[in-house]
């Protein structure tokens, strides 16, 4: 019969190994999240004119922050706006990324390295800088476009009207995001076994047929991955519209959901309602990405 193992030393080891990770997770994730939740149920209460010392204190507010936040028409329209933004941005960006990746992967492409680098390059430009650059191009009096278009007999449309501003912002997202997604898709394409191409060529398939019938199905997982990440990223859009806002009266400080949170927290000094809306957005994002991943897991990875 085996002797019972001694547990003293080995038992501590696993805890010691996970301790740093758990400590950091608690410190940087759990505590801030907990504090946000705590704040979201509070509000600031003043007495009298609110000008004396100690006239303002934090009190429990129940769900009132959630109620007022979710019933705020500005927040609801920003939610709708970000969905439309995502619908514009993600298909265009991923379509272009896929197209460029397929072109680069096709045989006999000249300047391949140069093309790959120059398509990737905008991704390396910080979004704030990119937004400023594009913002200047959008403003007719400082942009070179009106002069160029005038030569062609055209005039530049106003890119900051209520209807066009969303496209103007989405354009910056496409410009900055295509390169990164292109690299991911291109890398996936390089790992497709070349025997498949040979077989296809022997069967008489054209380049286009190879792309449609072999390449795209083979890189399905990469497309799903870039798709999910892109959707999550676009729903969190903040830098571009926040940077463009001073350039136009059209983009208000609560134009997108995260801008609304920022506006509440730092311009209106209501960190309580800002916390409540942060929680709402975080939960929505979690449900959304979890659902998306589940569906795509079943479809693309066959549950693997």
């Amino acid at each position, binding site marked *: 019969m085996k002797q019972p193992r001694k547990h003293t030393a080995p038992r501590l080891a696993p805890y010691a190994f996970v301790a740093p990770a758990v400590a950091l997770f608690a410190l940087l994730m759990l505590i801030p999240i907990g504090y946000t939740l705590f704040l979201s149920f509070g509000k600031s209460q003043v*007495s009298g004119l*609110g000008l004396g010392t100690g006239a303002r204190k934090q009190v429990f507010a129940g769900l009132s922050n959630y109620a007022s936040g979710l019933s705020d028409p500005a927040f609801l329209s920003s939610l709708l706006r970000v969905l439309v933004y995502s619908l514009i941005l993600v298909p265009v960006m991923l379509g272009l990324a896929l197209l460029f990746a397929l072109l680069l992967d096709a045989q006999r492409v000249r300047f391949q390295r140069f093309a790959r680098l120059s398509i990737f390059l905008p991704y390396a430009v910080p979004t704030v800088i990119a937004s400023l650059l594009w913002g200047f191009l959008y403003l007719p009096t400082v942009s070179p476009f009106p002069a160029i278009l005038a030569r062609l007999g055209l005039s530049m449309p106003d890119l900051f009207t*209520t209807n066009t501003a969303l496209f103007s912002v989405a354009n910056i997202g496409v410009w900055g995001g295509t390169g990164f997604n292109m690299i991911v898709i291109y890398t996936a394409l390089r790992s497709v076994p070349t025997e498949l191409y040979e077989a296809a060529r022997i069967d008489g398939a054209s380049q286009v047929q190879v792309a449609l019938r072999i390449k795209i199905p083979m890189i399905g997982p990469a497309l799903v991955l870039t798709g999910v990440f892109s959707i999550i990223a676009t729903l969190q859009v903040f830098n571009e519209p926040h940077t463009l806002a*001073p350039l*136009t009266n059209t983009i208000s400080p609560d134009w997108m959901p995260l801008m609304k949170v920022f506006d509440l927290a730092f311009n209106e000094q209501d960190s309580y309602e800002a916390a409540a809306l942060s929680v709402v957005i975080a939960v929505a994002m979690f449900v959304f990405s979890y659902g998306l991943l589940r569906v795509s897991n079943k479809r693309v990875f066959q549950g693997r």
Partner: protein
Amino acid sequence: MKLILGGRPAVMRSPRRGARRVHVSAIAAAALATLVAAGCSSASSTSSATSTASSPASSSASSSQKVTLSFWSWVPNLDKVIATWNKSHPDIQVQVQVQAGGDAELTKLLTAAKAGNPPDLAQVEYQVLPTLVSNNYLANVSQYDSNLKSDFPAGNWTQVTLGTDALYGVPQDAAPMALFYRADLFKKYHLTVPTTWAQFAADATKLHAEAPGVYLGTFSSQDPGEFAGLTQQAGAQWWSASGSTWKVSINSAASQKVASYWQSLVTSGGINNQPQWTAAWNKGMNNGQYIAWVSDVWAPTDMPTVSPANTGKWAMTELPQWTAGAGVVGNWGGSSTAVLAASKHQQAAAEFAAWLNTDPAATAALASVSGVYPADIAAEGALSAPPPYFSSQPNFWSLAKGYAADASQASWGPDVDVAYSEFTSAFGGAITSKASFLSPLAQVQSAVVSDMKKSGFTVAAS
């Protein structure tokens, strides 16, 4: 540098709380060079700086402990002004931490104060003092700076005391509004310099007929402080208090009159509907697209960067009046030096704040080096030579002094941040689509009232 990037650091909020933007102008730098040179070469001159230098005993911080005070401000070249103080007060060293602008600083200040580590001193615009006071972030320095009242105009003094016995800051600059116009282009388009808003509107219509695409200015949703100043001129008091009850009158008849007036000008085309402080606006100010600017006496600090090609061509005149000859103007911005409640050296900080804004050498340096239009009455009177940009107007400062005397008394409430933020949101769409300005105005009022009620303020029905 900032200018090239569109006028403001992008990640910051625009300084739209009425804060003026600060540009370190070449001219100020030049003035600075002379000052520094003078200061260096004649440390023992008879300037009043020496009197401060020779009497460090006057500082009541007699403890031998050396203290270092941090000071947040956006005033350009302030460190050069403060160097004089630091030289004469080895025990109280002040370090400036430069901020982007009034609005950006306020955001940081509120956050830092909430976190418990604000600076010792901060530049604070008058309209946000009630917000900071109601959060209990500012120290009452009345016991240290007890004899300053007579140094400042009553209007500025009321703003820093909030009408109480307390003192929450020492007034630094007065900010009466004024109209700036391109004298040469007014002649070219045969416009008369308006003295009333009716004339201003007539000029706008005439200009639009004569030269579409040239404007008498622009109406921006990003400068609520400017609109607030214009409504002040018309007699609006956005907040008032009686007993323990606040009254909010943002959507008053006076504000409505101003809103409708500007709406009609934007709709008819004499006034543009683009924001100020952008690269496009700078270009328009420089190339004659904008030939007038409703602004403030602090404009000389901005003009050299906003319209660099037109030195001497812009002129200042009184803000147009609703009633001819009434002589009333509003305020746009203006700020004070406040001591934070969390500071461990409140007495030293209060002493410095008083020195910065009342000592003749300090206020003279503030005016010449930093372009601040001082609130101190004596300092105001001491300004003689016009700012270099306005050299064609030798009486520039006496005009400014007249406007300061005409400035209507502002009354701010504890919710200015909400009002200003809501103004930008609500007016943005209306300005872009040239729709009615009255419904966004009502929206600002209701947002402020509901926010105040939510916080537990007693708000009178209006």
